[in-house]
Structures are given as structure tokens and as C-alpha cells.
């Protein structure tokens, strides 16, 4: 029995009542979708078009009438050493953190998948780094990485590993290492909890049957568990990649892109160029360089979800 049977055809000359119109699914659906779609169109669709327009003009905070400049902002960025460095930084930052978050997250999920006392408490506590405001937890990391008062340096010097502490946020490679550490700390719980949810859907009987057939725990993990949780892992990976490539807060609080641009990401560079230096168009173009990677991830996700839902 389908609900459509209630949709009576409206005969000519007889106006339908409001109730009858609302009962027509096509009409009702669009009415229900309207508020949400309006907001998304106004504050995602329209800004996106604005962004495309901005990026091909020379709009800055001081120009009153913007001039069309074609792809100058995009080609100009490619000639800038700072931009190229930023692209490299973004790839290093994303690549390294995603690999570590996946590794640690998988490990933590496997640990948490065992039964033990206070498991719920443990699960709640371990997710904390991911749920508190990143800009605020970054302040704790700022203090942990302080050149003089870093507690890590205190430990390094006290334990005799080195005479002097590390200038965490003040030297290029260490600064990148620092933001990578903070990002892994924040992101690992998300991987762990998502993968844990995947692990819990794995049929125990399958694993038991394999054990009876003589498969070692290692074999069971790689041959049965991993293939079964692959969809979850893939989706989490793509989500995290999108989020990490577009990261802003950690870098803004910890290094502002320094020292000497060694930790700038596309987001923070766009902010500096557009908001601090007032070059709106150039900033918009830098932001838009995220777009290709985003497209790849979105398409991959959509294709994958369509395939797995069939």
C-alpha cells in the first residue's frame, strides 16, 4: 500500500485546498527543503560565486572599483616562493598527520575494542582532545612548546638528554614538527572512535570460525577485520584529509605561519594576504587552490558511498 494513493487528481474548475496541495509530495518536499536550501545558497553558493569573481579581479581593501585581471592572481601565486613553500607545507602537514592519525587511531580502536572495566569512561575521556575548541587547546600547546618554559625542554634538560632545550616554535623544522604533533593529538581520537564503531560491527562468529580453522590472531586481523572495516577507514581518511588540508586554528595560534613562512598552510596564508595585507583577490585565489584536492575527495567519497550502498 503506497501513500501516493492519497494524491487525488484535482479536477478542472475545482481549486484544491491548502491541505490537498500539501499532500502532494512534490510540492510539500520543496516547501520543506526551502529554508535549508536558502541558507546554503546564500552563505555557501553565493560566496563561492563571489570567490570565483574575486579571484579574477584586483580587489583589495583600498580599491573602490575592481578591475578584471584574468588568472593573474593564480599565476602570480605560482611565481611566489612563499606560496610554493605553503603548498609544500600543506602537503607535508597533511600527509604526515593523516598517516600517524590512522596508525594511532587504528591501534587505539583495537585496544578499546577489548572488554575491560570503565570502558565507557575511557572512551569518553579519550575523545576529549577532539571535542574541545581547537583554538583553546592550541593555547595549552603554545605553552607546552614555549621556548623558555616548555615542560618538554624541562624534561630533556633534567634527564640529561641535551644541555639545552629545543626552540620548538622558533625553528622551521621543529615548528612544523610541533604543529604536526598538536594535530595528531587532536585528530587521533576521531579516527579511533570511528574505527572502533566499525570494529564493533565485525561479526564475532566470523573471527571465531577462522580461529577454529587455525588462523592466527594476526591473520584474522589482516584477512578478516581489516577488509570488513575498510569502508569506515576510507571515509574517515577522506574526511580527515579534507579537514587537515584546510586547517587554520592550530597554525594561527601556534606559529602564525612562521618562522619565515615554514608553517604556513593555504588557509593561514590566505588570511595573511587578504585580511592582514588587504589583498582580497590574491587571498581568494590562494584559498581556491584547495579546491582541486577537495573535488577529488568529494568525488571519491560520493563514488565510494554509492557503490557500497548498492
Amino acid at each position: 500500500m503506497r501513500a501516493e494513493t492519497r494524491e487525488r487528481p484535482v479536477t478542472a474548475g475545482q481549486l484544491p485546498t491548502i491541505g490537498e496541495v500539501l499532500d502532494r509530495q512534490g510540492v510539500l518536499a520543496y516547501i520543506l527543503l526551502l529554508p535549508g536550501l536558502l541558507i546554503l545558497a546564500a552563505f555557501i553558493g553565493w560566496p563561492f560565486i563571489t570567490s570565483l569573481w574575486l579571484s579574477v579581479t584586483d580587489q583589495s581593501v583600498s580599491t573602490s572599483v575592481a578591475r578584471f585581471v584574468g588568472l593573474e592572481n593564480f599565476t602570480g601565486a605560482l611565481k611566489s616562493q612563499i606560496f610554493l613553500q605553503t603548498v609544500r607545507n600543506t602537503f607535508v602537514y597533511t600527509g604526515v598527520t593523516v598517516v600517524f592519525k590512522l596508525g594511532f587511531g587504528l591501534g587505539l580502536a583495537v585496544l578499546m575494542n577489548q572488554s575491560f572495566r570503565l570502558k565507557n569512561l575511557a572512551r569518553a575521556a579519550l575523545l576529549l582532545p577532539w571535542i574541545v575548541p581547537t583554538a583553546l587547546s592550541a593555547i595549552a600547546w603554545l605553552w607546552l612548546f614555549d621556548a623558555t618554559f616548555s615542560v618538554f625542554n624541562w624534561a630533556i634538560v633534567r634527564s640529561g638528554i641535551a644541555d639545552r632545550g629545543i626552540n620548538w616554535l622558533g625553528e622551521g623544522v621543529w615548528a612544523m614538527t610541533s604543529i604536526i604533533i598538536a594535530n595528531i593529538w587532536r585528530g587521533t581520537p576521531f579516527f579511533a572512535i570511528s574505527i572502533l564503531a566499525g570494529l564493533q560491527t565485525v561479526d564475532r562468529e566470523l573471527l571465531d570460525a577462522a580461529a577454529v580453522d587455525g588462523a592466527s590472531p594476526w591473520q584474522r586481523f589482516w584477512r578478516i577485520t581489516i577488509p570488513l572495516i575498510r569502508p569506515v577507514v576510507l571515509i574517515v581518511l577522506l574526511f580527515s584529509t579534507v579537514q587537515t588540508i584546510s586547517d587554520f586554528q592550530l597554525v594561527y595560534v601556534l606559529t602564525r605561519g612562521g618562522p619565515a613562512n615554514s608553517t604556513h598552510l593555504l588557509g593561514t596564508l590566505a588570511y595573511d594576504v587578504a585580511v592582514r595585507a588587504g589583498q582580497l583577490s590574491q587571498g581568494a585565489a590562494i584559498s581556491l587552490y584547495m579546491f582541486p584536492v577537495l573535488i577529488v575527495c568529494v568525488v571519491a567519497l560520493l563514488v565510494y558511498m554509492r557503490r557500497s550502498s548498492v
Partner: protein
Amino acid sequence: MTATVPRRLLTLYLPLSLAAIVLLFPFYWMFITSIKTDRELIDLNGLPFWVFEPTLEHYRVLFAETGFLRWALNTLTISVVATAISLVCSILAGYALARLRFRGAAAIAGAIFVTYLVPQTLLFLPLLEVVRQLGLSNTLWSMILTYPTILIPFSTWLLMGYFRSIPRELEESALIDGASRVRAMTQIVLPLALPGILSAAIFAFTLSWNEFIYALVFTNSTDIKTIPVGVVTELVKGDVYFWGSLMAGALLGSVPVALIYSFFVDKYVGGLTAGAVKG
């Protein structure tokens, strides 16, 4: 069976404790820094892991000499209103996409999913222009109206899943009994979807509370700032960091989301993983 005890220690308790220490240490550090005296904070010879003369001075400074209370009120207002707007929009849209048959349903669902993945750093500059054009610069409205773009896409997807899990037959029997579709929706489907709605609400509230870049770019006066932006931009004067007050602000700003979350861990985790597991 005594041999299994050290084995469990090695495969469970030891690595788990290590993970707990690494993940929770920064919070301990925030707390302990916030109750240390300035003298103790810069004392390189003492033991940094403990506090010998606890003080609430940094909290007093935070409340009496900064806009913290104002920022807290702003953050609360923005989060509540943005969450409410997003929930209404998402419930309506999620119901339509999950239950009604109409042209373009798949395309619209796909488009909403794509907006889910659009990062804030891609759009903050043009959005700043749009906010200016609408005359909303430096108002709470600039955030109340833009945060739903972050919240609606995932809430809609989450709720679509919930609506689909409610048996169609319940609704159809009401329709056959003569109830209108709107009535069937509000009186039968919505109450059953309440757990999903709560999940979406918690998720939306914490995301609004934590938002940073829009709030940073759209505001410049102290009165309009949110906690994350206020703490980060106003407790550092030039090169002087007010570490104690910074930590106090960071900690207090994290408490509300941590509390809400601790009451509803399962809902939160359910919402977080709904997309990943069901996808």
C-alpha cells in the same frame, strides 16, 4: 590462568594508560598552569608538574579585567540560535529527502552532502564580502546566519538516516486513517526521531561553540567576540602572554562542551559515526 594477567597488562592496560596520559596531559597542564602564581610559572628550578601555592588570581583577572563573561554570553547566544535554526531546516529537509518522492531528490541530497565537505577556510574571504554587503559586519548575526552552513549539511544527513530507520508503515497507516501528511510527520515521525534530533542538536551546538575562523574574521570589537576568538586575541598584549589567564580562559571555554558531551557521549559518538558506519 595467572599467565594471562601480565599478558593483559601488556596488550591492554599499559598501552591504554600511555594513550590516556598523552591525550589528557595538555588538559592537566592547562588546569595546573591556571592556578599557579606568576612567580611559580616562570620558576625553572621547581617541579613543574605540581602547584605549591595555588591561586585563583588568574580567574579573577579573567572575569574582572577581560570581556570573558561577555564572550561567554555571545558564544552561548550564537550557538543556541544557530543550532535552533539548523535543526528546523534539517528536520524539514531530512524528512523530505528521506520520505517524499519527488524529482531531483537524489541531486539535492548529493548537493547537500557536497556542502558538508566545503571547508571554512575555502569560503571565509568571499563570505566576509557577503557579510559586509548585507551590513552584518561585526554583529552576532554574522555568525548566527553563517554557522548553519556548517551545521545543516551534516544534521540533514544524520536525520535522513534516522527518518529512514522509522518504519514507513506507521506513517502510512496514519495517512490511510485520514491524517494529513503534515500531521503524520509532526505527530508520528518526529517523536520517533527524537534521539536523532538530540544527537544532531548536541553536535551542532558543540560545532558552533568551537567555531573559530568565521568569528575571527567577521568581528573586531571586544563586545562581539566569542570565547575562542576573545581568549586568543585579547589575552596576548603585544609580546606579553598572560599565561595564567590564557589557561583559565581556555579551560573554562572548554568546560561547557566537555560537560554536554560527557552527559551524551553515546549520542555524540552515534552522530559522529553515523555517517562513517552507515555510509
